[in-house]
Structure formats: structure tokens, C-alpha cells
């Protein structure tokens, strides 16, 4: 995934689309610390009042390419790096110890503190391709993995290989400025890592996240 911060307006459409796509519950407004949002806008403030500037960056799970810390510590294989390089989360395998998120330097996983509730009419908008999680398990962005499965199934039925750009995430589709681009870093996004504006979060930890940011252009 590539996020062009020069195009991003921090409108939050990706957050909403992600929650809608992945059956993320609204949450309890009294406990903002227990809220679940797989895709978030991280505010990084710079300077002190009155010379304040804020940089905002959409941030999903970073999908570390090299030894994801969450997968290293998971006691039951509920999270791991799969052959495609994605880091899935198996809700029915998770025991809810929360070690993964404490090991994650990005703290980009979420815990179901209580049973998710979908008051009317939200229950009618549930995505049938995505399970509703139980209370007590971890969850996180999985790059809309269910969509990859749909793309594969469709391609198999039509007797062809999946096409480039066919697998799209909800945040990518909802982004009005096309700041979020998604695809194989060796396919659709080839060369994005070599872009002069490219950087990743906490690069010095050497985890090689697969979310590549492109910083703002300076005029």
C-alpha cells in the first residue's frame, strides 16, 4: 500500500469505509480508548502554540515484511505472515492475551473489549464476506483479505489469472483524492519504494512495513 501524503486531505473517508467494509462496531463513546478503528488518521503535532503544524497520516496495520513482532510473540498462531506477505488475524484461534499489540511498535492492533453491538439500522449494513468478531479477541487491518479471495474465485471461474489492479481495498476505493494506492509492491506499486518521497514508519526498527508513505512535496 502506498499513501501519498501530498494528496491526502485527512478527510477520514478511508476510516469510515474500512469500518463499514469490515464490520467494525461503532463502539462506546464513553470509552474512546476502547474504540476500534482499523484505519486511523494519526496526528503528528509539531512545534508549540502558536506556531503549531499538524501532519496527518492514515495508518492501517503496517504489515511488516520482516519478522512481524506480533507474529513473533503470538502463543497460538493466531497471527502470522502468510505466503503473500500479508499478516492475517484468525479470530477463532486468538486467546485474547494481547501480547501481539504490546509487542507491536505501531500499536496498530485492536482488542474487542466487549461484544460488538450494531444498533438498528447498522445491522443491515453488515458485510456478509467478513465475520463479526467475538468479545475478547484481537483484530486489525488485513488489507481486505476477503476481497482477494473474491478476486481469486472470480478469476478461477473465468479461467484466467487475477488481473493487475483487480484486488482493491475499501480505503483505496473510498479515497476521493486517490492518495491511497494498493497493490503488489512488485506489481501495481512497482518502484514506489524507490520514489524519492518514500518513507515508512519507524524505519530504523528494520521491520520493513509494506505501507509506504510518500511525503508532502515542498514548494
Amino acid at each position, binding site marked *: 500500500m502506498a499513501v501519498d501524503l501530498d494528496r491526502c486531505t485527512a478527510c477520514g473517508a478511508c476510516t469510515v469505509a474500512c469500518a463499514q467494509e469490515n464490520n467494525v462496531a461503532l463502539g462506546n463513546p464513553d470509552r474512546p*480508548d*476502547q474504540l476500534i478503528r482499523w484505519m486511523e488518521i494519526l496526528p*503528528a503535532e509539531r512545534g508549540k502554540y502558536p506556531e503549531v503544524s499538524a501532519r496527518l497520516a492514515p495508518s492501517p496495520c503496517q504489515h511488516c515484511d520482516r519478522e512481524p*513482532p506480533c507474529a513473533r510473540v503470538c502463543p*497460538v498462531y493466531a497471527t502470522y505472515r502468510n505466503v503473500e506477505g500479508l499478516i492475517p488475524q484468525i479470530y477463532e484461534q486468538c486467546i*485474547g492475551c494481547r*501480547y501481539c499489540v504490546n509487542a507491536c511498535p505501531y500499536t496498530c492492533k485492536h482488542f474487542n*473489549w466487549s461484544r460488538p453491538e450494531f444498533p438498528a439500522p447498522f445491522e443491515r449494513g453488515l458485510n456478509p464476506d467478513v465475520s463479526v468478531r467475538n*468479545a475478547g479477541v484481537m483484530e486489525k487491518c488485513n488489507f481486505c483479505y476477503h476481497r482477494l479471495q473474491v478476486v481469486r474465485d472470480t478469476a478461477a471461474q473465468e479461467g484466467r489469472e487475477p488481473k493487475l489492479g483487480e484486488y482493491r481495498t475499501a480505503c483505496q476505493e473510498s479515497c476521493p483524492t486517490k492518495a491511497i494506492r494498493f497493490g503488489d509492491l512488485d506489481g501495481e506499486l512497482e518502484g514506489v519504494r524507490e520514489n524519492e518521497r518514500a518513507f515508512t514508519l519507524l524505519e530504523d526498527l528494520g521491520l520493513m512495513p509494506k505501507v509506504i508513505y510518500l511525503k508532502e512535496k515542498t514548494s
Partner: protein
Amino acid sequence: MRPGRGGAFRVQIAFFLFIWGFTFVTAGWFAWSARWLHRYGDAWKPAVVMGIAVTSCFALLAGLLTWTFVALGRGENGERFDPVPDPIERRLLAPVLAGWSARTWATALALVAVIAWAGYCWYLQLRYGLAVTGLGRPVFWGMYIVDFDFFLGIAYGLVLLSAVLRLAGADWRRAGQRLAAMGAVFAMIVGPVNILLDLGRLDHLHKVYASGRMQSPLLWDVASIMTFLITCLVYLFLPLIPDFGLLRERVGGFRKPIYRFLSFGWTGSAAQVAALDRANRLLAILVVFVAVIVRSVVAWITSLTLQPLWHSALTGPMYVLGAIFLSAAVLALLLAAMRRAFGLSAVIRPVHFDKLGLVLVLCAVVWGYLMVSELLTVSYGNEPDEMAIIATKLSGRFSLLFWMAVGGLFAAPVALLTRKSWRTAGRVVAASLAVFVGSWAQLYTELVPVLEHPRMPLPGSGHYRPAAVEIATFAGCLAAFVLLTMILTRFVPVVAVFYERRGRGDAAAQATERSREYQAEVTHP
């Protein structure tokens, strides 16, 4: 009649089959895990390494027990163990032989009420989820994990301290040996309950065994808790055998057959005494290794992550020292409580508090050194992520707890107990209370501030404050610890009668022997 034969004998055989069976099941579990890990292409060597470590520990224990009990069973030719009750025995057995007073019942009921309250809170949490706790993002671990570390520190420390004292041949250890083992077993029962409280899906706990990932420090923890609980039970049980033999002769009614079964045919013959001594000595060596490793495993859960301040090699040694420190305080408190409750001032002497006070001062000094090492290393390096956390400890949100830890773990023991004449029972108890509170505060300030400072600027993240549920369950755990101790002290003497009596006989001879050895060195250059 040969004691311990008949129905009890069959139960004992069943017990042996169980412990050997348990050993083989454990070995089989690790082998099976290694096999499927290998088949699915994940790292299988950790399973083999852990399997060898845990299984050899169990096999040693099972072998030790078998060997000891076979030796005890052969002791029938010795004289019947029925000496005339001496004053020490009368004093020590009084709580076991007497009934429960109204005051004891009242205390027990109060403790049961606290436990029931905690149980109700657990029910609320099971019903509404962990949302009822103060936990949230980014503080995903809170008081439950602190309490778990705390109780396990008590268990590991008590066993480590008493085994080291035994190996060092400290005469004064005898009064505390039984209490240390008792406290360790109960802390070992109460501590892991906090993990059950903390888990989001308690009903998925079996997955740890069914599909455990051996590279995860949590699996190391599961294996080490399992190992240590069994080790600790044996560590409590073996020295109890002579006292069970004594109680078998002293009590009547429904308790007599129970004591007869538990005494495993103890008659007090020289061969039996020698066998039991050998077993106790070997066990003391084993538990020192096990306790140090398992305490470090608890520390490694946090220190093996990449988080600032957690990711420190000092955490392991700090936890091991902290466990000894905390357990010395708990042992002093237990000794003082037993002395007061059962009027044992003839057995629990000023020397015990003097020596435990010395242990506390020594631990305080080493703790201070480790703490300064940590603070200096971090603050000289001046890394922003780490400095932000250190700042909240020194003067920010966590300063009260941090300075409570410093006060309790360094200032109080040093100020109260440095001189020999200061180390009276009252001062040692006061310092122990400070260490008790300080240890908890230290574990809290090692865990929570790090989590409150995630590297990324997370929106909507709050501060952690323990909720009523977490405080209630901690109170329940403490109450359960006290209640279990109270109950067991009514069934076994709090100080080992056999060892205390023998120690008194041997002490003078051993002292003479030691002094003769020193002099021999001087006179023969």
C-alpha cells in the same frame, strides 16, 4: 502393623503412576508439538529444547519421589516414631490440635466475603467483557499482569530464598522453611489466576496446548508455571512427611487416616532420615535453578519485545532480585503473624528477624545499584522515546508510585535496618510492609508507563486507571492467599517439628565443628 499399607498403599501407588504418567504426557506433548511444527515448516527446535528442560525436571522430581518413598517404605525396621511430646512440639502442634476459635471463624468469613466479592466482579467481567476494566488503548495490560508478576515473585522468591539458605547451611532458616514453601504454593495458585482474569477468551485456553507456538515467551511462561507449581508442591510436601508421621500418632478421629496416608510409612528410623535428607538436599539444588529460570521467563515476556525501556537486559536480574527481596519481606510478615497468632516466640526468635532484616538491607542496596544503572544508562543515552517514559516516572503521572517504590525498596530498609541493634521484630515488620507495597509499585511502574507511551501518536488514547473490578480481584487474591495459609496452618505445624527439634540438637555440635575447622586452618599453615 506396617503403617501406610492397605488402601492407602494403593493410593500411593496410584500417585506414583500419576506423577510418572504426567512426566510422560509432558514429554509426549512436546514431542508431538515438535513433530507438527516440523511438518508445517515452523521452528521445531524450541519445542525440543523446552521439552528436554521441562521433562528432565519432571523426571528428576518423579525419580526423586520414587526413590525417597521406596527408601521410606523400607524403614519398617526402625523404632516406632513416638517420642514423648516436648514443650516445642506441644507449642507447635497446639494450633493443629485445637479447634477454631470464634475470632478465627470471623476472620475466615471476612476473607471469604472478600473472595466472594472478587468472584462476583469476575462474573461481571465474563458477562460484559474486559470493557469493565480500566484497560484500553494503548494500555492493553494493567493491574492483572502486575498482580500476576507480584504473586509469582512471592512464589519464586520464597522458594529461592529458602533453598539458598538451606544450601548455605544457615541454622536460622528452619523456622521459616515451612512457611516459605507454604507461601510459595499458595502464591503459585493465586498468581496464575490473574492470567485467567486477563485473557479475553478463557474458553480458548486449551489452544495453548493444542497449537502452542513454542517460540512465544508466553509458552515458556506456561511451561515454567506448570513446572514450578509441581516443584513447589514437592518442595512443600517432602519436609512435611516426618510431621505427618508425628501427627498420625497425636490425633484421632477422621484426621488420623489422612495423616497416616500422607506420612508414607514414616517411622523415623535412621535410614528414613538419611533418605529424606538426601532428597531434600537434591531438591534444594534443583529448585534454585528452576526458580531463577522461571522468574527470568516472567521478565522476558516484556523485555523480549522492542518497546522502549522494556527492551532491557537488566529486567531479568532485576526481577530475580525483586523476587528475593519481596519474598524476604513476605517471610518476615508471615513469621511475625504466626508468632503473634500462635504464641511461637520460643521458636521464632529475634535472630530470625535480625537475619531477614539483613537480607532486606542487602537486597535494598543491590536494588538501588540496579535502579541507578538503569536510570543512568537510559538518561545518558537520552533517547526521546525512553526519556518521555522516564520523565513520567520521576516527576510526572507515575511519580507517586515510582517514589513509593524507591522509598519502600531502598529508603525504608536502609533507614530502618542498617544497624544490628535496629533490626528488631517491629522495625523489620515495618520495613517489610514498605517492601511489600514498594514491590507492587515497582512492577506497576515498569509495566504501565511504557504502555502509556506508544511510539505512534494514537488518537483517542487515554490514561490507564485501574477499575473497581481489577482492585476487587486483587483484594480477592490477597484474601485467598491469607485464607489458604490460615487453613493449612490448622492442619500442619507452621514450623517443622522434626527439623526444629533435630536442628536444636545439632546446632551446638555443628557450631563446635565449624569453629574447630577454622582453628585447624590457623594452626596448620
